[in-house]
């Protein structure tokens, strides 16, 4: 039985797309009067990270970037992180993001899509699991070892060279 209004949000696998499906069903005397189904397929690379995926990526190094929609340096940095999320994957390094503004999940994913973020965005729960401390400056990027200990805190906008150099200095990918 549907409630008068229900919102279904299906979050698909990376490189696929997000489907937002709203179904409104009004029922009177057991008869379905109106059914409105709106399906909006938003082709986007902004992806939600499932809990299982976090555990899976927990075996590797992580680059975790705090961003905000109102942070201009973040917007400059994001293409660099998009690049790294693909370039570092063969090395077992995952690039992930955190919405510093702590908007709700649907809003966060919407903003991430608009900002062109192609790496996974962590949930509040993920952040708690990783025991991450919210930074004083945006953007800030943490590098976590496979045991989730913070090995580096990079404050301010970074480019791919700086992050890769930091990882190399820690022996990642060698």
């Amino acid at each position, binding site marked *: 039985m549907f409630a008068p209004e229900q919102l279904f949000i299906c979050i698909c696998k990376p490189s696929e797309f997000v489907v937002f499906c709203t179904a409104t069903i009004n029922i009177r005397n057991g008869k379905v009067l109106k059914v409105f189904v709106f399906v909006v397929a938003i082709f986007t690379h902004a992806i939600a990270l499932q809990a299982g995926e976090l555990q899976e990526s927990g075996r590797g190094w992580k680059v975790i970037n705090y961003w*905000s*929609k*109102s*942070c*201009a*340096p*973040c*917007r*400059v940095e994001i*293409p660099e992180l998009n690049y790294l999320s693909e370039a570092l994957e063969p090395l077992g390094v995952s690039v992930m993001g955190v919405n*510093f*503004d*702590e908007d709700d999940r649907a809003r966060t994913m919407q903003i991430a899509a*608009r*900002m*062109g973020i192609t790496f996974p965005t962590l949930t509040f729960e993920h952040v*708690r699991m990783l025991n991450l*401390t*919210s930074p*004083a*400056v*945006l*953007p*800030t990027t943490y590098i976590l070892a496979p045991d989730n200990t913070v090995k580096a*805190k990079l*404050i*301010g*906008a970074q480019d791919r060279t700086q992050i890769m150099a930091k990882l190399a200095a820690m022996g990642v990918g060698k």
Partner: protein
Amino acid sequence: MKLGVFISLLLTALIAREVIAADVERLQSPAGKQTSLSRLTTDANGRIHLSWVSSTGPLSSLYHASFADDEWSNAMLVGDGEDWFVNWADFPFFSANDAGMAANWLRKSSDGIYDYDVVATFYSAATAQWSDPAVIHRDDVSAEYGFVSMLPMHNDATLIAWLDGRETRRNESHAGAHIAGGMTLRAGIFNNEGKKTTEWQLDDLVCDCCQTSSAMTGSGPVVVYRNRTNEEVRDTYITRLVDGQWSEPAAVYNDNWQVAGCPVNGPSVVSGNGLTVVAWFTAKNDNPTVSFALSQDDGKTFGAPVIVAQESTNGRISLAVLDAGGFAISWLETSGALATIMLARYDKHGRMMKRLAVAETKSSRRSGFPVISSHGNDVYVTWTDIEREPRVKVARMRF
């Protein structure tokens, strides 16, 4: 979790947190459920004004209530809309003068993903009406504008300072991403009908995402803000309006905090009884610090900084002057996800007289920026409680 580990964590949390002072008086808040982004100000008659934003679905509404004789007035709707840019750090300012009030919010502009305008409205006591909301920067450039501070002036006018992104749209490589020009600081004087009589550019390169603050000194208005140099040094600066001219912006203190990022933690300034106080946050060398400096010459020069809090703070400061001399300062002390709103009273020489915890809150952005204001030696504090649904709270501390 093993019992021993649980008890250890519990004890750590209890020890780390401050005990709420018994003499902090919780006041009935006029704001209901789903409210946040509150601000306090005191008018020249000593009346306390509280403003806050109420959210219902996509609709945001700015409300106001005043406090006199220990009672809140009925909440008054200032403005509402479904096109607001609502941000935890850049939230409506509210100002009150003898003849009326002024308030602002941010409204998404039609162009660009991140663009929004500063919209202001002015209340005339004579007509008992708010003016039609209007964009205060008439440059016709779609960009980011915000972090407003307002200051009541003589002749029922209001000085408004804001961060102005019009220059960031020059020579952009592609829309909404690469910032080629710098964020600027601008100010204007508006009459109580909302008509702008003067406008200035105060600084051609400032930090993009920190609040501004303004105060009336014995020599005239001052505006403080987080500066930005080409080398990405982002220290707190002040500029003063003297004889119709704004002074060359100068550092309150050279922390030399070099950071190519947004601290989202602006300075605060107050002035009264011949004392001007600027407080600010830095995290140089990743060491979060709240400091203040005093000026005896209306912000022209400042003494050495005094550290208020260090290491376990995320700033979010606010200041208020006290009739007895000296001032009060609030800030957040943090312990992981938990935070405590702290309040301290300092004398006019910068000596701490009292330090206390006002309320427990979260270090989360959703808890916003606590704001204080004073009447006599009473300090009023407002913040957003996010324990369940967001709700604006108010407390009073009588020094």
